[in-house]
């Protein structure tokens, strides 16, 4: 495909004059076997992913029926907690179900749009089996607690490398080579969407997952705190954009016209909204971090571009729906079109709601609530699910070369799924709104009206209805699986292999552009005028549309340039992350405890980010500062509050309280939906592995000194102090074969007691050589009064009378502030 931007795409309809495609006629066959494999994988993983979602949803409401029912899970409870299964569900739904659906669409449509077989059958097979192995690896590693702790990017580094190889090497390479070898001069707009998907997801995946490994199953992000949050939501938002939106628009532009037997309503609109999405989407990530410690300028930029997304998104929806003009009679009879119509409608709803949620004031109400969950499922079930189902029902008769087993069952699937979505999202929207309103409700005296636990209990009935909605949607999925199986049973003994023919595409000669005479020819005009006329003819763009490598390159530039404009200031302007002198690195034991926090997926329910909103500072304490999370790899700001925020958890409760809370949450917080974590009480901590974590943190910038050589001893000393407080309150010294001081729970408690206390840390002793008794950082700690102006002093956190079980009544293992938030206000 060598050549440069060439002649007009027949703007004047001058066929023949520039005909460079009519090479010799070639025969070829499509590879539909790979499409069948991906369709099968889509259905299988769809069933399992949705089943995982149903289990997760059920686990959340089970305690309502009996507070101890989760104990019935016995030894399996450890692997079936919400924190571990939720990432499994999201990864299965996104990368297994939607991912395989995308691949089925790409392999089927690309061959037809390019009039050629996929470039390599072998790469196709490597892609298929490689992707399925990755899914299996995820399904095993996530319940085992092997995770990076970043939403939708949980998988650890060996799996990440495999994803990069399979995605970019096997899939991307095969796709690009197919484009280069195509027999259709113009690259249809679906292919543009596929190109953008492959290129952008590669960039997002690689740069968000840059880590320092300390073993096969553990790594630390090279980014920390604010910058990690920025990178994560640059990735997270654009994963939705370029994995769940762009490829589905691509498949919509191919399969909808096919099913409706009508060309797309407006090809111009498809071009416009493609480029608009590519240019705008990449900027909008920071709107996921409104009112957090992210700099204001980034948040505002994210909001503005988030709002701008509305129009191009609706461009796609309108283009899709109007493609059915004159064919609406078919919709009533054809389940495929039914799925597409509802899919597009949900796309329109979700892409109206998304920009609205990016408005700061509305986001302040909905963020961290279940509203986000309803929004996500409106898009995932309504848009991705329904479009995938429509595509599969259209593909089944063609791939298996036999009529669909039951059109009636497909129609039933449509109605069950549609009702299932509504039964799911309506109560969850209501739950989100309820949560948001209850969290901020205050009485006449300015006190919070509701305890956090009350807000949870209020929405448990909504969660119960959600289980029914999820069950209906899964039921529809099972109907599809059964229909597919029965269709497969009636397939022919051997599939026909139709032979197609099309002319070989010849390279476009460099001189082609000369063939179109300039309208300014012979006129007395400056050369600049000719240049402007040439550029404004847009032949160069027509040329790009024919050149896959250049097109890919320009898409990459559009995405990377937009990203860099946000990233460069974020990483280079020091004022974006003002340091706080009293914020010190975690102690070795706290580092281990933090890893346990991440492995258990606690961030799926607990945020660590107090927004500067009155109701939040009253409930949780002083708002979070950027400088507080500079040692947090990964950041743990979270995106949802099924449980309360933990940013200032340190010192709010005693270590003994935390021990009992891990053993039986409902006992300490009646009405809590948190699962127990008994396994942490009986599992030994490996103190010898502490050093690896300290060294990795040091490598990434944490100013450790003697921790590098004495980490295990320091960790033991701190564990002894935490354990002493727990045992003093009546907990047996030994539980099973595990001493309290050796348990993983002690490390987790040490971490929880550290959260948020640095900001109010009292002045450290300055005597040279003085060492804190807890074995934490040496006494070079700068006094708290050296904190910058934005660090609020201790008195900003309301002190309250210590409850009987509060740390004020016990000896504190850490040099925490005496400021304790009133537990009642939580």
């Amino acid at each position, binding site marked *: 495909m060598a050549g440069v931007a060439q002649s007009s*795409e027949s703007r004047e309809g001058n066929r023949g004059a520039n*005909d460079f495609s*009519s090479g010799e006629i070639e025969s070829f066959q499509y590879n539909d076997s790979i499409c069948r494999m991906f369709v099968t994988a889509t259905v299988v993983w769809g069933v399992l992913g949705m089943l995982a979602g149903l289990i997760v949803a059920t686990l959340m409401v089970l305690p309502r029926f009996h507070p101890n029912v989760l104990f019935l899970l016995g030894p399996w409870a450890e692997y079936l907690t919400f924190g571990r299964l939720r990432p499994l569900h999201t990864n299965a739904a996104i990368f297994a179900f939607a991912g395989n659906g995308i691949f089925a669409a790409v392999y089927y449509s690309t061959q037809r749009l390019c009039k050629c077989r996929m470039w390599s059958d072998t790469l196709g097979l490597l892609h298929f089996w490689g992707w399925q192995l990755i899914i299996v690896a995820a399904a095993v590693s996530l319940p085992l607690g092997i995770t990076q702790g970043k939403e939708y990017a949980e998988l650890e580094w060996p799996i990440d490398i495999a994803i990069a190889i399979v995605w970019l090497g096997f899939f991307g390479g095969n796709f690009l080579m197919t484009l280069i070898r195509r027999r259709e001069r*113009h690259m249809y707009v679906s292919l543009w969407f596929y190109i953008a998907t492959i290129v952008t997801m590669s960039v997002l995946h690689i740069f968000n997952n840059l880590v320092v490994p300390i073993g096969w199953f553990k790594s630390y992000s090279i980014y920390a705190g604010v910058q990690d949050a920025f990178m994560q939501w640059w990735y997270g938002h654009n994963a939705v954009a370029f994995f769940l939106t762009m490829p589905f628009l691509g498949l919509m532009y191919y399969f909808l*016209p096919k099913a409706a037997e009508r*060309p797309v309503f407006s090809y111009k609109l498809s071009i416009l909204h493609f480029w*608009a999405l590519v240019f705008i989407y990449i900027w909008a990530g920071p709107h996921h971090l409104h009112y957090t410690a992210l700099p204001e300028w980034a948040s505002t930029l994210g909001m503005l571009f988030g709002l701008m997304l509305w129009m191009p998104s609706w461009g796609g929806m309108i283009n899709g729906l109007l493609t059915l003009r004159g064919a609406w009679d078919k919709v009533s009879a054809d389940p495929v079109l039914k799925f597409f119509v509802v899919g597009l409608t949900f796309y329109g709803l979700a892409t109206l709601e998304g920009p609205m949620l990016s408005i700061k004031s509305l986001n302040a109400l909905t963020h961290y609530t279940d509203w986000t969950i309803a929004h996500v499922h409106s898009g995932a079930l309504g848009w991705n699910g329904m479009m995938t189902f429509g595509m599969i029902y259209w593909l089944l008769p063609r791939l298996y070369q036999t009529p669909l087993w039951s059109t009636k069952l497909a129609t039933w699937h449509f109605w069950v799924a549609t009702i299932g979505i509504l039964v799911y999202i309506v109560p969850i929207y209501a739950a989100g709104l309820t949560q948001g309103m209850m969290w901020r409700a205050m009485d006449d005296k300015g006190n919070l009206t509701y305890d956090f636990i009350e807000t949870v209990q209020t929405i448990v009935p909504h969660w119960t209805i959600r289980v029914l909605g999820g069950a209906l949607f899964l039921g529809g999925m099972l109907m599809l699986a059964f229909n597919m199986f029965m269709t497969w049973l009636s397939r022919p003994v051997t599939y026909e292999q139709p032979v197609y023919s099309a002319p070989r595409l010849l390279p476009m000669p460099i001189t082609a552009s000369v063939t179109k005479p300039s309208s300014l020819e012979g006129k007395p005009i400056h050369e600049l005028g000719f240049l402007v006329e040439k550029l404004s003819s847009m032949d160069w763009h027509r040329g790009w549309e024919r050149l896959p490598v250049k097109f890919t390159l320009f898409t990459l530039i559009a995405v990377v340039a937009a990203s860099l404009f946000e990233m460069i200031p974020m990483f280079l302007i020091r004022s974006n992350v003002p340091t706080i002198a009293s914020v010190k690195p975690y102690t070795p034991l706290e580092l281990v405890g933090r890893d346990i926090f991440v492995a258990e997926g606690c961030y799926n329910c607990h945020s660590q980010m107090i927004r500067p909103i009155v109701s939040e500072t009253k409930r949780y304490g002083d708002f979070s500062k950027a400088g507080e999370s500079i040692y947090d790899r990964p950041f743990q700001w979270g995106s949802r509050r099924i449980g309360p925020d933990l940013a200032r958890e340190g010192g709010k409760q005693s270590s003994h309280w935390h021990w009992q809370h891990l053993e039986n949450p409902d006992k300490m917080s009646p009405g809590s939906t948190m699962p127990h974590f008994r396994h942490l009480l009986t599992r030994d901590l490996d103190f010898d592995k502490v050093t690896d974590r300290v060294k990795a943190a040091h490598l990434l910038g944490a100013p450790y000194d003697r921790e590098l050589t004495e980490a295990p001893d320091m960790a033991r000393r701190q564990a002894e102090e935490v354990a002493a407080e727990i045992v003093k309150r009546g907990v047996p010294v030994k539980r099973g074969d595990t001493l309290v001081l050796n348990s993983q729970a002690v490390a987790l408690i040490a971490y929880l007691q550290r959260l948020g206390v640095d900001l109010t840390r009292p002045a450290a002793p300055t005597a040279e050589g003085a060492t804190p008794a807890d074995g934490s950082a040496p006494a070079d700690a700068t006094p708290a009064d050296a904190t910058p102006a934005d660090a609020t002093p201790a008195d900003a956190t309301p002190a309250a009378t210590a409850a009987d079980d509060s740390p004020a009544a016990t000896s504190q293992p850490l040099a925490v502030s005496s400021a304790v938030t009133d537990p009642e206000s939580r």
Partner: protein
Amino acid sequence: MLREVISALDYSACAEIALAIFVIAFVGLVYGTLRLSRSSTERFASIPLSDRVEDPRHDD
């Protein structure tokens, strides 16, 4: 040296520059798209509907 250079750079105009680039690029694309002829767009739009090509179609 590099640290000094980077420190001396003013990144405050990044958002404005980015917006300008975005507007210019997007206006250019809108202009180019609107100049497409009806015959071209109709031909492009019909590509998915012509899987089974019997006669070689011409390219312009």
